C-alpha cells in the first residue's frame, strides 16, 4: 500500500509546539515587559529543506495558526511568513542547508525580517510610535538571543519529524528502513 506523503505535516506540528512554548514563555515574561518572537524559526526549515509545495503548505498553515491568535487582519502574518518562505527558498542553493549553524543564521535573518514587517504594519496604532520602537528594539534583541539558543534544537526536532514521515524532505522518495 502506498504511504501518504505527509511532509507538510512535520513543520506544521513542530511549529505548533513552538507556538505553544513561545506563548507559555511570553505568559511568564509579561510582568517584565519582555516578549519572545520566534517567527523566523517557523519558516526556515520548511523553506530550506522541503520542496515548494509541501514547505509552503506547512508555512501557510502555520501562518493561519499565528494569525488566529493575533489581533491582526487575518492573513497578514500568513502573507509575511509566505514571503519569507519564498525568499529563503529562492536563495537556498547558495548556502549549506544541512548545517545547523547556517540554519541558525538564516532563522535569525528571517526573524529580523518578520519582526520588522509586523512592526511597520502595526506600530501606527500606537499613540506614540517613536516610544513604541524602544520596546520593540528590546524585544527584538531578546528574541534574537533566545532564537540563537533554541534554533539547533528546533532544527533537530523537525529533522526527526521528517524522518518519521519516512520520506526524503526534498524529493519525497521513501527512505530506506
Amino acid at each position, binding site marked *: 500500500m502506498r504511504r501518504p506523503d505527509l511532509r507538510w505535516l512535520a513543520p506544521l506540528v513542530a511549529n*505548533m509546539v513552538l*507556538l*505553544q512554548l513561545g*506563548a*507559555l514563555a*511570553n*505568559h511568564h515574561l*509579561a*510582568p*517584565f*515587559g*519582555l*516578549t519572545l*518572537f520566534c517567527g523566523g524559526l517557523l519558516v526556515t526549515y520548511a523553506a530550506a529543506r522541503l520542496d*515548494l509545495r509541501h514547505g*509552503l503548505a506547512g508555512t*501557510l498553515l502555520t501562518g*493561519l*495558526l499565528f*494569525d*488566529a*491568535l*493575533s*489581533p491582526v487582519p*487575518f*492573513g497578514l502574518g*500568513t*502573507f509575511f511568513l*509566505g*514571503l519569507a*518562505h*519564498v525568499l529563503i*527558498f*529562492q536563495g537556498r542553493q547558495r548556502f549549506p542547508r544541512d548545517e545547523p549553524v547556517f540554519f541558525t543564521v538564516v532563522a535569525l535573518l528571517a526573524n529580523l525580517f518578520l519582526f520588522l514587517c*509586523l*512592526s511597520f504594519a*502595526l*506600530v501606527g*496604532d*500606537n*499613540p*506614540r510610535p517613536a*516610544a*513604541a520602537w*524602544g*520596546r*520593540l528594539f*528590546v*524585544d527584538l534583541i531578546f528574541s534574537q538571543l533566545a532564537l540563537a539558543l533554541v534554533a539547533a534544537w528546533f532544527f533537530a526536532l523537525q529533522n526527526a519529524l521528517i524522518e518519521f514521515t519516512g520520506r526524503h524532505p526534498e524529493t519525497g522518495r521513501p527512505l530506506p528502513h
Partner: protein
Amino acid sequence: MLPRRFDQARPFATLGVLLLVWLLLPFGLKAFTRTTFFELQAPFAAAQSYVQDLQEFWALRVRPKQEIIEAGRDLARLNAAYEVRLQENEQLRAEILRLENLLKLPPLPDHRLEPARVARRDFNGWWQRMVIRKGEKHGITVGAPVVFSGGVVGRISEVHLYTSVVDLVTSPTVRLAAAIDADTRPVSYQGGLNASFSAPRGTVEFVPLDINASPSAPRRLVTSGLGGVFPSGLLIGEITRLEISSDGLFKTGEVRLDDRLHSLTEVTVLVQLNPEDR
C-alpha cells in the same frame, strides 16, 4: 519544460496566486477559518493554565499550618467588613430603585459579575491581550468590561466557546471615554506606552486647560460611563503629567497604570443584564 526565468520566479508566482485567491475568499469563510484555528489551539492554553493551578495548589499544600491559620483569620476579618458593605450596598440599591420609580427614570444598566481565571497573557509592543477561561458558554459577550480590584483591566474583544480574549487597557487598540476624578468633563484615554522593565502607561487627550497634574500631585482618571460599556467611576490610572497639546486647545498627558495589570491571574467580567433579568 518551463523556461529557466519562469522557473526562478515560480515560488513568487505561487505565493501571488495564493494571495489573490485569499483576497477573493468571502469574509464569512475567513471568519470561520480564524475561529477554527483559534479553537484548535484553545485547549493548549486552557490545559497549561489548569496545570499551573495544580502547581499552585500543591505549592500551597506544603505551607505551614500556622500560616494557613493566620490567612484564615485575616479572611474572616475581611469577610466581616464585606458583610457590612454588602448591607450598605443593598440599602443604596433600594434607594436608587425608589428614586427611579419616583422620577420615572429609565433604569441604570446593571451587571452580573463573572469571575474568570487568566489562561494566557500575550503582552508585546504591538498589542496587549489575555485569554481567560470563560466564554460563550458562560454568557460572556463581545465588548463586556473586565475589571479587577485595582480598576479597569480592559474589554472583551473575542468570545469563543470556552475562552474569551481581553484587550487590555494598556493596549494601543483600547480607547476609552474617561473623566478626571470630581470633574464631569469627558477626556479620551488610549493605552500603548509599555516600555520594558517598567510600569505600563497610557495617554490622555482632550483634557481641559484648567486641569493640572504632576508626578507629585497626580489626578485619578476614571471611566466616564459615556458610551454605555463601562460603568462610571472605575479607576483607570493616575495622570502624572499634562502639557498643552500642539493645537493649544486642550492638554495631553501620560497616565500611570496599575503595576499588577501585567501579572493578573484572575479578573471579573461585567456581563450586562437585561432589564427583565434584574
